């Protein structure tokens, strides 16, 4: 019933690629340490630690962050491969939080790089490094921020969207009805909350309704 895991993994690889390609060392980088195969939970000796924090990443030079990004990317690829291999064999992957740890580190690297770029861009050009946003009004009458897209040519007359102070009839009606609906939903929500607060444990226990109160 229980087949050893290394042979499983290599059989997956062999079946996917033609037999000519051997399980080379390059391919091996996509797989976890063989000591971790078939474990319910990794031993502390083989279990990687916490993710990088932003404070730690701020100490590191840009080239270090660049290298660390690729280290994390390789690790993430390996973990996703292992997850896939485990799922295809209907097994649980040991310590699946490793994927989230790597992802967290990568997100934080991005945040730190953005922070640095933002400072330089604001100093040099006066603009933020964050993607540009424009305030536009949609056909339904909502005014909201939308990320601008880079184009080679200037906008045609009808292509560019703007914020409009006065809505047309349809949008106006839409907004009226929308606000009414939201108001009623909120009123009902508050009402429910109040009713839930007045409900005591005994009412649940003895399946009793709340006392009827007239002229509230």
């Amino acid at each position, binding site marked *: 019933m229980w087949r050893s895991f290394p042979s499983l993994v290599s059989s997956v690889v062999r079946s996917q690629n033609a037999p000519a390609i051997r399980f080379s060392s390059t391919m091996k980088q996509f797989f976890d340490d063989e000591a971790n195969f078939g474990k319910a939970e990794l031993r502390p000796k083989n279990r990687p630690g916490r993710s990088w924090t932003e404070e730690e990443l701020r100490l590191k030079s840009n*080239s270090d962050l660049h290298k660390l990004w690729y280290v994390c990317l390789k690790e993430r690829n390996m973990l996703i491969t292992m997850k896939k291999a485990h799922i295809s064999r209907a097994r649980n992957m040991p310590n699946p939080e490793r994927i989230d740890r790597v992802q967290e580190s990568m997100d934080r690297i991005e945040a730190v790089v953005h922070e640095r770029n933002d400072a330089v861009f604001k100093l040099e050009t006066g603009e933020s490094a964050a993607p540009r946003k424009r305030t536009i009004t949609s056909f339904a009458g909502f005014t909201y921020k939308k990320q601008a897209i880079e184009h080679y040519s200037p906008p045609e007359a009808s292509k560019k969207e703007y914020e409009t102070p006065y809505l047309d009839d349809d949008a106006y009606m839409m907004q009226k009805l929308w606000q009414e609906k939201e108001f009623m939903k909120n009123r009902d929500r508050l009402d429910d909350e109040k009713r839930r607060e007045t409900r005591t444990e005994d009412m649940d226990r003895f399946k009793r309704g709340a006392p009827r109160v007239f002229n509230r």
Partner: protein
Amino acid sequence: MITSRVLRLPRKPFVDLDYARHMPAAYVERVKRTVPRKVFGDRFGAPDIKMYYVHPDDYLPSHKRPWEDKQLSSHLQRADKYFSSQLSQQFFNLRRPKSQRIPDTEWTFFPGDLVQVMVGKDKGRQGLVLTISRDTSDVIVDGLHTRLGEDMEGSEKLGVDKTLRWQEQPLSVSKKQVMLVDPNDESPCEARWQLNPAGDEYIRVSTKSGYEIPIPSQAKVTYEYLQPENYIEVEGKDTPADAVLERTYMPKVASFEQEIMEDMGIKEERTPKPTFWY
């Protein structure tokens, strides 16, 4: 003149003490299943519609860790129930647990503390805290407030003999079912956080006698280590601690991309044409 010493706020190290301190938040949310199944976004300015696996208001915290097998399977079952009721358009009553979470700065119980049980068959007995649960404000005391329960439920169906074991039951802190023990006279007391004489750190003192109740070393235990200094670094995976804290950043007026290009010897002589953002 303002010196940096004045600006430095007293530390509150107790706020970070947690078994799940280094668990990624995304993973914890995922095992709780309080993540959206599908998000209907890009609705021309109207807010997104989110369909959850388990609605956040429906999540019932427990003194067990959410990633434990039993907890996880109960979350999955709840998600199935919720989804099937959504498919058949039936009313689904969200559980909306009422328990109020005690703020981090007011929480005073930690694993390893000596506490006294105030209720139940072990009323008046003192014991050590095994685990705490911040979400439910519960504490489990070693060997006290137990109930005889099945070790493995449904074992008889599998043909294994039923084994019973004394299982510790959670004791509520907010209902004052447990109290800390005053080191002065070994009687139950309440505690609060107070600045130490040096004024740089908060310590836990008994409100009754003013004696300090030191935080036990067991409070520092996390999933990764028993004590931070005893952590075993995995070779090939973990970055050594001294390498992590080494400073290599030198600020420079160049963007990240420019600096990497310079490092790798990539030269860009083309000038980009003007583009239009809209």
